[in-house]
């Protein structure tokens, strides 16, 4: 753990850790401003996975021989690292394939088996589809209802209206910790308390917070927390569900197969202990090892330093983009209340054209609905462009972005 007194991180120096950032794009320096979609990977993570495959690849848990024991140790060691990162007991840490599966695990293991007609699941208008669609599917099967807590014009949750929507019928409140479109940091501890006051569970989508700031699940008081490896310097193919162990104990399993059983007869089966009860089949072993290395990398830097840096980057993006006449910037204007994913719209330029033009200048941004179509409707747009920073992003990236946007205007303006 680092303290606030530690020196600011130097993104230009950190870039050397990320092989891809040495590459050029159309002859320009690669300016990667799409870390909210997926982060780049440091050498340490690639090395950890490579070493796993070269030294000790074997299937985990049941092998007696040394290779299998080593593989199991690295795999379960990654679980300890992930657990420690977010201050959660390790038996409550389930490895999934991504954050989306983590939410679906809750939807199928708990929702489909528990929800009844009249029950409500409350999510917010700023949720990513991964915290909306599973609940719509479950609602379709069970007859429960999905409701949406409103977003204010300033791009924050309307807490009072949200509180009013939580009642005795509410069985679960799902909320994104940091919005991938607006950047908004939501007061999830307060929302968890609101949910608990009515006996509802609280599921936090921490996909955009865990990579970018210290997250302490015990302090948040959330029952269920989902995040994903590929946005936190880790590999694709792995996500995490942190669940209160007692919940996992009480739920029926989701995926059935090897590893998650205690006994199987032709009559019935009994389940393994948690968290393995929810990890059917060969798990993403190398991916867990890579995620563990990513956690080590992030902790070596210090998540509070990452957060401090991204606060600066959010400010720099807000300032830089504001220079463009007529621009509309979505989400909070106060960098203390937001992360460094900044969506914007230019009246005369479609996000697709922006992203295409910027690409030619070596700048990667995302254009589209960012898997948040309900929010797009609230914002009254079909799509936005989004620039999102991470620990390797610097002011030079913001300058490149703004300069390229100016040229785009000229190009399309004619």
């Amino acid at each position, binding site marked *: 753990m680092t303290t606030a007194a530690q020196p600011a991180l130097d993104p230009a120096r950190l870039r050397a850790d990320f092989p891809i950032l040495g590459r050029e794009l*159309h002859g320009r320096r690669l300016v990667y401003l799409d870390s909210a979609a997926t982060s780049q990977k440091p050498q340490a993570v690639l090395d950890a996975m490579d070493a796993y495959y070269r030294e000790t690849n074997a299937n985990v848990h049941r092998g007696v021989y040394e290779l299998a024991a080593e593989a199991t140790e690295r795999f379960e060691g990654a679980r300890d690292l992930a657990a420690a990162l977010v201050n959660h007991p390790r038996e409550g840490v389930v490895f999934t394939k991504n954050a989306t599966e983590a939410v679906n695990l809750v939807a199928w293991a708990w929702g489909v088996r528990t929800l009844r007609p009249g029950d409500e699941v409350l999510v917010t208008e700023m949720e990513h589809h991964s915290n909306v669609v599973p609940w*719509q599917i479950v*609602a*379709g099967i069970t007859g429960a209802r999905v409701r949406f807590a409103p977003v204010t014009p300033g791009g924050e949750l309307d807490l009072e209206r949200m509180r009013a929507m939580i009642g005795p019928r509410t069985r679960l409140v799902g909320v994104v910790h940091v919005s991938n479109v607006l950047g908004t940091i939501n007061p999830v501890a307060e929302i968890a308390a609101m949910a608990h006051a009515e006996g509802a569970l609280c599921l936090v989508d921490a996909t955009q917070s865990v990579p970018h700031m210290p997250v302490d699940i015990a302090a948040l008081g959330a029952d269920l927390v989902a995040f994903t490896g590929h946005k936190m310097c880790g590999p694709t193919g792995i996500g995490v569900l942190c669940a209160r162990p007692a919940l996992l104990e009480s739920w029926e399993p989701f995926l059935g197969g090897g590893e998650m059983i205690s006994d199987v007869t032709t009559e019935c089966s009994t389940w393994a202990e948690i968290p393995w009860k929810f990890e059917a089949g060969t798990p993403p072993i190398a991916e867990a090892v890579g995620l563990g290395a990513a956690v080590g990398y992030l902790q070596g830097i210090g998540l509070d330093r990452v957060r401090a840096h991204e606060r600066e980057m959010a400010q720099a993006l807000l300032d830089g983009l504001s220079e463009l006449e007529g621009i509309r910037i979505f989400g909070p204007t106060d960098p203390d209340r937001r992360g460094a994913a900044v969506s914007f719209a230019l009246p005369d330029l*479609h*996000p*697709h*054209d922006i992203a*295409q*033009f910027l690409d*030619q200048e070596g700048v990667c941004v995302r*254009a*589209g*609905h960012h898997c948040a*179509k309900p929010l*797009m409707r609230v914002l009254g*747009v*079909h*799509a936005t462009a989004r620039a999102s920073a991470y620990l390797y992003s610097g002011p030079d990236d913001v300058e490149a972005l703004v300069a390229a946007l100016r040229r785009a205007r000229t*190009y*399309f303006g*004619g």
Partner: protein
Amino acid sequence: MPGLDDLYQQLILDHYRNRRNQGSLPDPTVQVRHHNPLCGDDLTLELLIEDGRVVEVRHDGDGCSISQAAASMMSEAVAGRTLPEALELVEHFRLVMHGDEEPDEDRLGDAIALEGVARYPVRVKCALLSWMALKDAIQTHSGERTEPVPTGE
């Protein structure tokens, strides 16, 4: 910037800045609305069909330069054609976008300028949006359209 100019040919930017046949018809024979789920582009297309011919075309909506220019170019390319001709042209354009056919400038008109889009798979859907809407509109008119069934909730 040769790559970009290859995609955004002058003709495209021109159609984008000055869209032909934008708007709506007072009394369309058929109207369809399409959207591109990937980027949220949204298009309303109206046709006036008389004696088996596309007499007038109007398009309106929100989209990137490629999708807007494509709609504008399509509206010019199909006006006056018989329905079978128009459907043939849609298929030809689709094959050109997927790199499976050489573009036929005589039939495509300005839309030939969209040729370069084929090298940008993500943008192909933008260029196809209005053409697919056209196909849908004609098939709706001919009673052939099978409504896509939303299987949600």
